[in-house]
């Protein structure tokens, strides 16, 4: 039997590769978005610190902006530095 494919529809799934399921700040799943966003994905990305902890970018930025003196990781209290890997 010879089959001719006339067309096909590709379906893909994606997920963030993080070391946890939920953001430690908003407690929403990493595969969802932060509470200020509507859609997960590149518009609500994850970021990592050099301490290896990971958060929604919007959540950690909001936290750092609220801190006048020390910019610390909410999880381990080490100085927060973005890990630009």
């Amino acid at each position: 039997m010879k089959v001719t494919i006339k067309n096909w529809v590709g379906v893909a799934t994606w997920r963030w590769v993080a070391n946890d399921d939920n953001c430690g700040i908003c407690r929403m799943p990493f595969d969802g978005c932060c509470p200020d966003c509507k859609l997960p994905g590149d518009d609500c990305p994850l970021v990592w610190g050099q301490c290896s902890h990971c958060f929604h970018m919007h959540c950690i930025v909001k936290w750092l902006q609220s801190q006048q003196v020390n910019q610390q990781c909410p999880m381990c209290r080490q100085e927060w530095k973005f890990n630009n890997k």
Partner: protein
Amino acid sequence: MAGLSPSERRLQKELMSLVKEPPPGVTVDSDVIERNLLQWLINMDGASGTLYEGENFQLQFKFSNKYPFDSPEVTFVGPNIPVHPHVYSNGHICLSILTDDWSPALSVQAVCLSIVSMLSSCKEKKRPPDNAFYVKTCNKNPKKTKWWYHDDSV
């Protein structure tokens, strides 16, 4: 969870996990809290084998709409305020995670656990040395107090 603010959404999740896995001696009336997620009343039993065994306390948590970026306002309320070197007779608690050392990764559960542990490590029931002066002069909101954290022993 439609219609809830980001703070309320997080508090709703915290309430569910506190009901499911409460720290020892901690109970909440989730029906009451669900009517106003920004103010919680928590019942806390003194741990057995400690100076507070057999006593019951009530903790009040008030949250702003900046929670968890802003720490909750936590005080003991009701007829029985624990007699402890870090608890003033008006219910205010001197505990660094409630102000300077707050982190948005902390939670109601973590705060309750810290308070249970603070009470449990107490060796002698007494009020803070400056209790009389503090309760006369302080703001109603303990977060307005410039706390001076110097005693890590209890």
